[in-house]
């Protein structure tokens, strides 16, 4: 379970997170929506300690993420993260992109890690691309590679940061299909997305971010089809 309690964060004078409270239960998919700069992506980075926080607390399985005594490298094994810009490692083949952390972090043998990497690449439909470099893959394939890389670590939670935003429209579908599959398998996910139809279909809850706060949160049915607050209505009417 992920508990986010009254988290504040600023970059200099710019307040990015202004008191965020959110609990994500195991097996739940929570989608974060809202305008650019409303703090959604920053929150994800705070959950796995890629960013520090100024105030508040983030607990992952009751471990305080930003506590000085917490081993953050250890903690990140539980939290897979996938980024908008894929961030695949350009100097490694698809297989090695996935197996690198298996070897270094989970201390698997070469054979073990390669087998597991292959298994996950097949799962996301990249069976033919094992020995290809990222530059030889399309955006959608690179993003699926990044998903496989995160999944191979068997994380308890998946943090997905606008992972379809940098893709050509015709490639969005294949990545969303992969996410649907994961949701069906019961993976706990926090998904920052602009794909409202996808959020409506897959999310258990949707949170609307506005100016560093969760302005409104609820089931997709309530929040998307029947938003109560005016800001939420405005935002949805703009992008739907």
């Amino acid at each position, binding site marked *: 379970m992920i508990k986010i309690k009254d988290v504040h964060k600023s970059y200099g004078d710019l307040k990015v997170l202004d008191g965020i409270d959110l609990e994500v239960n195991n097996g739940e998919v929570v989608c974060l929506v809202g305008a650019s700069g409303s703090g959604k992506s920053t929150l994800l980075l705070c959950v796995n300690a890629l960013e520090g926080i100024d105030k508040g607390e983030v607990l992952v399985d009751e471990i305080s993420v930003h506590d000085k005594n917490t081993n953050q*490298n250890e903690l*990140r094994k539980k939290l897979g*993260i996938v*980024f908008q810009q894929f961030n695949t490692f*350009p*100097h490694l083949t698809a297989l090695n992109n996935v197996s690198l*952390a298996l070897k270094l972090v989970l201390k698997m043998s070469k054979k073990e890690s390669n087998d597991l990497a292959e298994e996950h690449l097949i799962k996301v439909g990249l069976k033919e691309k094992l020995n290809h*470099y990222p530059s030889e893959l399309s955006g959608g394939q690179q993003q699926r590679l*990044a998903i496989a890389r*995160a999944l191979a670590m068997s994380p308890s939670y998946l943090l997905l940061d606008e992972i379809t935003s940098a893709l050509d429209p015709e490639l969005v579908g294949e990545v969303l299909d992969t996410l649907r599959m994961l949701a069906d398998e019961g993976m706990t996910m926090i998904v920052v997305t602009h794909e409202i139809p996808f959020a409506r279909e897959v999310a258990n809850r949707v949170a609307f971010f506005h100016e560093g706060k969760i302005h409104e949160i609820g089931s997709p049915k309530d929040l998307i089809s029947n938003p109560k607050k005016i800001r939420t209505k405005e935002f949805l009417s703009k992008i739907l």
Partner: protein
Amino acid sequence: MLDYTFQWKVVWKRLPDLFEGAILTLELTILSSIIGLLIASILVIWQKNDNIFLRNFTKTWISIARNTPALLQIYIAYFGLGSFGIHLSSYVAVLGAIAFNNAGYMTEILRGGFSSVSKNQNQAAKGLGLNNFQTYVYVIYPQVLKTVFLPMTNQFIWAMMGTSLGIIIGLQELTGMTTFLQSQTFRPFEFYFIAALIYIFISKSILLSSGFIAKKYLRI
């Protein structure tokens, strides 16, 4: 002008001496490049250090190395330091000055290499649970290496050219040795021509082998 008769025999006779000079040239090139690269690896870190002294030290080094003639740098090492009672042999002075010069240029090459690796790569590696050391060794450095490899090769060749300035303080590297030999034999054209061929041979060997490594191991 056309009644000049080439006399190559005298050059063949002194070929061992030319090779001796060439080996000194190669030795200075390799050493000054390695020392330069080691210093540059430190300077590139100091360049972003919180300590203002280290930052300014680096800035000054790069500024002097890149904005003054290498010849002047050799003079400072050989004659200038003498004022402080530091008397370097011409070998050490040339090695030191060219290494100093190399370090300045190589720091800039490395800086470019690091800034070409997106900050996101760091996040992605950390996000997978890699620690700082692993992130650098397995994710960042290989990408930096790819970017800096060919510019570094050029710098390596530039260093070789630079060592020829050693003649000015009496070092018998290839240019120095050639000058000495032609003055003994009065066959300047023949000696300088062969020296030029040796320089070209060394340069091309460096370029070819680095091209081979780049293609085979770095996919450049």
